[in-house]
């Protein structure tokens, strides 16, 4: 684990060895266990943007739900969540949700379609004069005053993004989680939204950006946590994503970087394991070029390497 240096602020969120599993009914009466998250560890400090990058099915949205305490009722959670140096118990999650830990959701579907957006944004404020704060924030995001009186269906795509970020901003939260804030959008809107998130970090808040789009993540993040099959395989700083990925530590991160069109569009065969059929050893082993027989026996632990963190027996 990266030990925070004495001069750096302490992490506002410390996730250690988080594991989430579900039981589902298979054929007939048998139950099978899905393990969407296994031993996930990540920290985030005030003022930094941490991007959590992974493909669909890598558990990234579930991580956000676990932090906020909104997992489905049949979820089994183990591991540790600490916020501002205290354990994040279910009671604390309820208290902090929306006030100190805020979510920027994925789509307009998260807004109440029957309520005007101004009122919804105001309802997310927890201290101070809500109406004033809402007006100030709308002005800052170049939303005309009339927008406050509109309903969600009347907003354009760009306006919706800005309203969703406003709800997080007005809450005054110290930790903001953005779960796929720009799904499949045009680059201008993506840039603008990401820029707003970067500004939030600039004000001293911690921003967790969850996305599958590594290019977008690299534009504003300080550190990137790479997720694979529900576990963290590497946590690297943005500077490591350069050249042909030689500074990266885990084979999956390198594969991801080299797959980008501007980096060679390199093909890596294989697919992520399905959640109820995880390999017994290292989760990446079946498709790893560096795999040896040791890799099938046990799961590697997370270890520090060259200023970052990696989960691999062979990384150097």
């Amino acid at each position, binding site marked *: 684990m990266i030990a925070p240096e004495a001069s750096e602020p302490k992490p506002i969120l410390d996730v250690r060895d988080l594991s989430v599993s579900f039981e589902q009914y298979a054929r007939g009466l048998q139950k099978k266990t899905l393990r969407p998250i296994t031993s996930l560890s990540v920290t985030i400090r005030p003022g930094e943007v941490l991007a959590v990058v*992974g*493909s*669909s*099915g890598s558990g990234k949205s579930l991580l956000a739900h676990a932090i906020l305490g909104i997992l489905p009722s049949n979820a089994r959670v183990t591991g540790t969540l600490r916020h501002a140096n205290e354990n994040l118990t279910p009671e604390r999650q309820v208290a902090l949700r929306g006030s100190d830990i805020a979510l920027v959701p994925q789509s307009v579907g998260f807004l109440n379609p029957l309520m005007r957006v101004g009122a919804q944004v105001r309802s997310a404020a927890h201290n101070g004069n809500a109406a004033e704060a809402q007006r100030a924030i709308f002005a800052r995001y170049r939303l005309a005053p009339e927008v406050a009186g509109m309903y969600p269906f009347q907003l354009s795509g760009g306006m919706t993004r800005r309203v969703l970020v406003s709800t997080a901003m007005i809450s005054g939260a110290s930790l903001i989680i953005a779960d796929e804030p720009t*799904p*499949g*959008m*045009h*680059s*201008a809107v993506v*840039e*603008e939204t*990401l*820029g707003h998130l*970067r*500004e939030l970090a*600039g004000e001293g808040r911690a921003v967790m950006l969850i996305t*599958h789009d*590594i*290019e*977008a993540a690299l*534009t*504003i993040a*300080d550190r990137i946590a790479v997720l694979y099959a529900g576990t963290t395989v590497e946590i690297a700083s*943005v500077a490591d994503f350069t050249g042909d990925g030689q500074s990266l530590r885990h084979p999956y991160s390198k*594969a*991801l*970087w080299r*797959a*980008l*069109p*501007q980096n060679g*569009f*390199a*093909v*890596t*065969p*294989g*697919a*992520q394991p*399905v*959640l*109820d*059929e995880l390999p017994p050893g290292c989760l990446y082993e079946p498709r790893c070029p560096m795999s040896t027989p040791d890799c099938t026996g046990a799961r590697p632990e997370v270890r520090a390497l060259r200023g970052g963190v990696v989960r691999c027996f062979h990384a150097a």
Partner: protein
Amino acid sequence: MPLEARGIGFRYQRGPWVLRGVDLAVEPGELVGLTGPSGLGKTTLARILAGYERPLEGNVRLDGGPLPVTGYNPVQLVFQHPEKAVNPRWRMRDTLIEGWEPDPELLKALSIERRWFDHWPNELSGGELQRFCLARALGPRTRYLVADEITTMLDAITQTQIWHVVLDIVRERNLGVLVISHDRPLMKHLCNRIVDLESVMSDFPAAAGEGEVGGSRGQALGFSDLAFRKP
């Protein structure tokens, strides 16, 4: 003979015209990129080209004749959201073989694993589902593929796997592909030419014919032009 859209016009009910006077052609063996600001127009054009909607004006021509209304359509469309394109009550193997029976090489190239066949769609992720949708669409009778943002929601590794398979099939079978995307670097890598939807609509004053368009209407395209930089 190409797949041609001639003078396509379309609008929903009595709304504004989403497409007007659109001319577009895709030759066999060619990958044409289609980009543009409004998602609605590109997707609507994709649906019209693949026979899912009838244009209100103009027509679509394949080999000089109209698209078939019944039977296998040689123009196959793959959607942005694979979850909606598969029957949730069918196991994956039934979805896979709905159009034809894909051979093992194709399955291997797409990294589709046999043990996924027994699963239900809701047990698999978007990347896995999209591989099935693509395999289903690439039957031997398919001559044109309309790819509507097919890898936008997917991670970079799945994206490369999918496109490499498409490129191989384009080479083997002289397939024509329309690549709809807003990812410039991706399209530069894949496409022979890139078309901006606005430039092929006869109504728009900025119409400049076909060709590469960089930053029309003042929109920054691609991540090289960043307005925000980290401190």
